[in-house]
């Protein structure tokens, strides 16, 4: 797919998923797992189209935590993509990463924090940073598309070189308002 386009220097502020993809490639990421999310859809497509990345769709987020541990045992660097609504599912499995000091890099698109119309998204969105922190994970924020490379790069170093569990929370403001109906407010 977009491999050629991606390798041309075409990133703009709206192309932050491309900037994330390139940064992950620079870090030699060989496995990507995900629970589908609209905010990650471009990165998921790029990952599936890349023959050097083994891309795995999950039934629930904690599978990706365990997958990342197995990947590391076998010498692969892995990344887990999810939405904030799935973070709570990971809490118990994060003990695997802490107990063994496995690196974990997870990129989380936020819901429930910016122009959210669905109240059911708000409790887990609000608890997302704490859900990681109670298990000892480091939480970084990506608020501005232009910072994508710098933040993902810092997170990847902390995870793969520092043997830490690192979550990058991607602000809902970057993803934009979800359009559900034609109704205007």
């Amino acid at each position, binding site marked *: 797919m977009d491999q050629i386009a991606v390798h041309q220097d075409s990133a703009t502020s709206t192309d932050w998923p491309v900037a994330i993809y390139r940064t992950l490639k620079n870090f030699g990421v060989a496995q990507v797992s995900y629970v589908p999310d609209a905010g990650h859809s471009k990165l998921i497509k790029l990952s599936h189209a890349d023959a050097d990345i083994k891309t795995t769709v999950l039934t629930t987020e*904690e599978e990706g935590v*365990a997958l990342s541990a197995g990947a590391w*045992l076998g010498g692969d660097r892995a990344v887990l993509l999810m939405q904030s609504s799935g973070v709570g599912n990971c809490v118990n499995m994060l003990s*695997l990463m802490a107990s*063994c000091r496995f690196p974990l890099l997870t990129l989380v698109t936020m819901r429930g924090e910016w122009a959210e119309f669905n109240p059911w998204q708000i409790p887990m969105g609000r608890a997302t940073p704490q859900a990681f922190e109670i298990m000892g994970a480091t939480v970084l924020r990506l608020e501005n598309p232009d910072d994508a490379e710098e933040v993902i790069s810092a997170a990847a170093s902390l995870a793969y070189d520092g043997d830490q569990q690192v979550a990058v929370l991607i602000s809902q403001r970057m993803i934009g308002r979800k359009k559900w109906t034609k109704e205007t407010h």
Partner: protein
Amino acid sequence: MSAPTGTLDRRAAVKALLADRGDLLVISGLGSSSYDVFDAGEHRGNFYLWGAMGGAAMVGLGLALAQPKRPVLVITGDGEQLMGIGSLLTIATKQPGNLSIAVLDNGHFGETGMQPSHSGLGAKLEVIASGAGIGNVSDIADMAGIERFRNSLRDLGGGPRLARIRIAAGEVERALPPRDGAYLKNRFRGHLGFQVR
């Protein structure tokens, strides 16, 4: 319908599975499965889980994808696999030929007081695996079946496989493997030739 539980001795079954293991890499699920694998013989290519219930098969998948030229065997219990039942669907989407899962099925949650498990109450893990898209499934009730399954493990194009192994529900003496996770991780990676930094 056949009886939900079996008669195989779990220690003898696991020992037979791991005989002449060659370059086999092993992930064991928490509780008795880890004790069985340790009892069969300590090995740097063993990674024993002491927690992470429901995660054994997914650790196996990540490893199998990273090491496609090595056979990977997950040895776990019915309760552990039931908690991560969705992982069977996830594994099926990747069709890793080098990944095999042996579920030691005694139909009970052995570690916590022998309460009947879902498989003891009628669920058939090999049928669920088949429905999930794992093409190579078996239901093993005797040592000849264990031997056939063991001989198939080195066929790296034959997986993913899942074998439900019907073991007896009795308690066996605990055999405790090392439980320092960072040690087990580094030992395993060292076995594969990765430097500990």
